[in-house]
């Protein structure tokens, strides 16, 4: 049964990849590594980061193309519509790609790649990692672009059921075409402290970017109240951002310098060492599609207190997380409840449970099912696909159709001037290594 699994050749595309660090980046990396272990061929494409441009091979011969298009806003490539067609076409042909998997709705490179891949008749999958609004101008614009990209897609993946609902409402695609494949955590990296911490002093850890979206303003209200009510509690705050100033001011105002420790930006390799110095992990995000940070904390044996937003309630069972409304009073109540639950918490048992609940190999297996479904869907010509764009809106539908027709014409012109046969295919590194070993 294992041997009869189909092997796919996947191109992961996103503006967000290493050396930039975040949830999307680590999702792409871990998923790619697990897919490689399952025998698929995976290549990643992102834009250049500073001097890092060209082809790089990372762990297990995972090939990464850093194409020399500079980012222009928040690590996003400048949207050029058609200018990325030649390089994407070249990569798809030379790597013999069968599926293009785009990540993150905010990535312009992802949208352009999916558009060009569909024009070339390649199968595409899209994974949405975040929740977005509906009312502000930025969200309206982003949702329209998402509607365009997902109009002609066979299947999409979301990281939680809440995220699926959000994506379906924003883009108008059919819910039955969206799979839910949650994120996971590297439980081998996030292990509890070898010896349990003493419970005479309760340490609450916060590790997040100190921005509005991550609820830094809530922390400013909650921390002084908790410190007033519970004299044996202290806080460790890791992370940096524009709201750090407010937290520093709060420390000064309430004289909490000895009870609130600010660590600044914490590199990901040191997150575990910060987590294991605490008993409770506090997450105050105002919006989260999934929240990998909670998984990391639970894997290290910490009890989590979080705001009940987005996909957070789907992440952990009730005995591992205490949920609160994103309001200071309710969060203080939740922290009190968590402190009372602490004596019943065994970090090692929590870690073992996390190992059984979440693993990247499981995510890869589920993603493989999505790939199999996508490959089974029928190929349609451009004329059969254009009506899917027309239903996107009275004016938008016609503009989308025009964009796709121009893209198709440009692709045919490229096929004429630079035939696919003239683009050399790349030999597989794995087969080359085996060949050298045999020799």
């Amino acid at each position: 049964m294992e041997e009869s699994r189909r092997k796919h050749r996947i191109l992961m595309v996103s503006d967000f990849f290493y050396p930039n660090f975040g949830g999307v980046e680590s999702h792409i990396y871990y998923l790619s590594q697990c897919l490689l272990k399952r025998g698929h061929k995976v290549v990643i494409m992102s834009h250049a980061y500073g001097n890092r441009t060209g082809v790089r091979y990372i762990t297990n011969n995972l090939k990464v193309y850093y194409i020399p298009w500079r980012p222009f806003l928040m690590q996003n490539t400048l949207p050029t519509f058609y200018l990325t067609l030649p390089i994407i076409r070249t990569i798809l042909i030379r790597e013999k790609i069968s599926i293009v998997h785009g990540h993150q709705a905010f990535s312009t490179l992802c949208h352009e790649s999916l558009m060009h891949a569909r024009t070339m008749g390649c199968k595409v999958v899209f994974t949405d990692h975040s929740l977005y609004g509906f009312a502000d101008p930025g969200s309206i614009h982003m949702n329209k672009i998402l509607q365009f990209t997902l109009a002609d897609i066979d299947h999409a993946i979301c990281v939680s059921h809440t995220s699926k609902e959000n994506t379906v409402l924003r883009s108008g695609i059919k819910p039955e075409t969206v799979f839910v494949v949650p994120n996971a955590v590297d439980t081998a990296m996030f292990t509890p402290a070898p010896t349990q911490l003493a419970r005479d002093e309760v340490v609450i850890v916060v590790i997040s970017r100190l921005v509005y979206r991550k609820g830094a303003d809530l922390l400013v209200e909650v921390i002084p109240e908790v410190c007033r009510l519970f004299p044996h509690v202290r806080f460790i705050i890791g992370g940096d951002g524009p709201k750090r100033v407010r937290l520093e001011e709060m420390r000064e105002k309430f004289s909490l310098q000895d009870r609130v420790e600010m660590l600044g930006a914490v590199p990901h390799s040191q997150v575990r060492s910060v987590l294991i110095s605490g008993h409770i992990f506090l997450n105050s995000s105002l919006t989260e599609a999934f929240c990998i940070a909670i998984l990391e904390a639970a894997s290290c044996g910490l009890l989590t207190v979080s705001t009940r937003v987005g996909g957070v309630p789907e992440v952990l069972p009730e005995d591992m997380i205490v949920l609160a409304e994103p309001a200071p009073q309710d969060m203080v109540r939740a922290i009190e409840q968590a402190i009372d639950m602490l004596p019943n918490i065994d970090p090692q048992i929590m870690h073992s449970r996390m190992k059984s609940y979440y693993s990247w190999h499981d995510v890869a297996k589920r993603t493989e099912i999505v790939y199999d479904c996508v490959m089974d869907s029928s190929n349609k010509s451009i004329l059969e696909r254009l009506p899917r764009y027309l239903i996107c809106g009275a004016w938008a539908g016609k503009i989308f159709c025009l964009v796709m027709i121009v893209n198709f014409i440009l692709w045919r012109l490229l096929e004429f001037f630079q035939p696919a046969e003239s683009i050399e295919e790349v030999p597989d590194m794995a087969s080359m290594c085996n060949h050298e070993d045999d020799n």
Partner: protein
Amino acid sequence: MKNRRDSHDTYKYVRTDTSTLDKVIDVHDVYVKRSKLRVLFSYIGRLILLANMSLLLIEKDKLSIVSFWRLFLGVVSAKLLQYKPIKKESVVIMPSFGVQLETHYWNGRIDRKFIQMGKILKPVLNECVTPVTCYWSLVLVLRDEDQLALVFQKLQPPIKILVPVWKALCKSTNLEDHSHSLK
């Protein structure tokens, strides 16, 4: 003397091994077909520039910003359509001595560059990524230098032609490494 040929639509590869005394000099030539269309375009570009300059000379009393703009466009088009036809690029491998990289033009000019064998750390088949394309190139990683040395300066031969040249370079640099380690 041993010869080996390989051909591609645009490029032709010829390998020649010449024995002198106890050494074998390995010569790898990559010939490129002269493009008649490119020659025609380069003449058209020069004609456009010539016409623009003549017009300027005739209209010298009525010079305006448009005339200078036309001249600028003429220079740009002549530059873009310029075609310096290359006849062949050669890699001459002299074991224990060095590698000579040559570019031969149709007008008789030859550009040469010599790299000592001891300076070469490793020949590498590199994938170059540009904003519009991706292609293979053969480069030499040199000791104590940041820049890679391109083996084929002007041409972009296909991987089928690059591989035998790369293997020959690897063989001669490995021999050099072995002789160094024995010392």
